[in-house]
């Protein structure tokens, strides 16, 4: 198997880079999008609650593969309109389309995790906030948010790993991530080992990610 890796060393390395960069970007952008949605879900009031609920239902309900096709080929169908809107530079690029699909998808999952941990904060904490006269903003910023994030960490960690795995679908829209390179090498050589080499890469990536997450979690000494 090692020979197959060295024969296509450059391809594997560039695939690794694409996979890692996509995963990291999607995690970060997804989190930024998920925060307000998760908070709106937890409050579950007014228009924002309904919108957040709709968002979550929609993007959690459909397979990522379908979302990916929808964004990529769907946007292609409307290329003329997108061009006149000045958005085509974004949708033209498979990388951006793939990233967008990943972000939309993971934000829905991350939002639910954030909602869960916000709602899971025991009412006793909120009572303490009231009894100590904290303002709503202080209470959120100094108490609810840090506790929620700490409680959400294991769930978010899982989601990050799922996301890493999900990037493999992007190969289908011409992105040469790890999976894309594996498919290419396989089509060149018809050598099944190409997939095993890819599998090893993913195993290592997940191990690294898990290790990172464990390190972050361990910083919350108080949760013990």
């Amino acid at each position, binding site marked *: 198997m090692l020979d197959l890796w060295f024969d296509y060393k450059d391809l594997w390395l560039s695939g690794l880079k694409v996979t890692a960069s996509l995963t990291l970007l999607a995690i970060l952008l997804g989190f930024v999008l998920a925060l307000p949605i998760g908070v709106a879900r937890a409050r579950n009031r007014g228009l924002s609650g309904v919108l957040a609920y709709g968002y979550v239902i929609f993007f959690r309900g459909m397979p990522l593969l379908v*979302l990916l096709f929808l964004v990529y080929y*769907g946007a292609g169908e409307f290329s003329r309109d997108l061009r006149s809107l000045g958005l085509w530079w974004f949708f033209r690029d498979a990388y951006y389309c793939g990233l967008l699909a990943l972000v939309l998808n993971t934000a829905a999952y991350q939002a639910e995790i954030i909602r869960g941990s916000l709602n899971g904060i025991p009412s006793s904490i909120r009572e303490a906030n009231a009894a100590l006269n904290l303002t709503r903003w202080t209470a959120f910023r100094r108490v609810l948010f840090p506790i929620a994030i700490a409680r959400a960490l294991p769930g978010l960690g899982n989601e990050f790993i799922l996301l890493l795995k999900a990037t493999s679908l992007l190969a289908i829209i011409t992105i040469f991530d790890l999976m894309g390179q594996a498919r290419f090498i396989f089509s060149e050589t018809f050598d099944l080992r190409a*997939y095993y080499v890819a599998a090893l890469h993913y195993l290592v990536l997940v191990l690294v990610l898990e290790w990172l997450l464990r390190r972050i979690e361990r910083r919350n000494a108080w949760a013990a």
Partner: protein
Amino acid sequence: MELLSLLTPGPTGWGDELLIGLSMTLGLALATFPVSIMLSFLIHWARSSRRRPLRYLAQMHVSIFKSLPEILTLLIIYYQSQVVISWVADYAGLDSTLSISPFLAGLIALSLVISAYGSEVVRGALQAIGKGQVEAAQALGLSRFHCFWKVVLPQFWRHALPGLGNLWVILLKDTSLVSVIALSDLTHVAALAINTTREPFFFYLVIAAIYISLVIFSSWIQKRLERRAARGFVAGGRAHA
């Protein structure tokens, strides 16, 4: 309107093909789910076994299939299992046309993946039942069989249902991946339809809507089941112990 006519059943539209695709998707999910659950129990049992090799094996199963992208698992199972079957068939001098269908490959691959997660659902549910229940059964002299059958299992469903419901939804959506090994599921049919109609947005939107409806319907069923399983547990005012 024009677009909708693409969905009519019969020789001029894609409605009937989509329906067949839908039944393939559902069929695969329905066939895979029970297999996954049984496998989950097995893996949980192996993981908590006293025998070290068994424990390691089960642990490895979980780590591997939780780390590999589903699509990679699928491709590897699809191609590799065929090679293995051919070897075995050749070696045993059996009918060498034995072959593994995309359906079976999908079933095996998805079962492996889902059971890796499922074993944790099983573990969580058993933990949620609590040591106290098992201890009470022991103290009352119940045999291990009765303890499992009469005390643990009835409570298991209640604790496992949310997790299992989640897994079902994951499974349902993961079936879309078998389209890449040309099983004519919903997504594959959509791709074929787009090949001739050149209406990707419309067809993928339809597919998305179907999946979303399936998921919503599933969670509705799940809620009903959960309510049923919660009978007797629901605190009528106070929730002690």
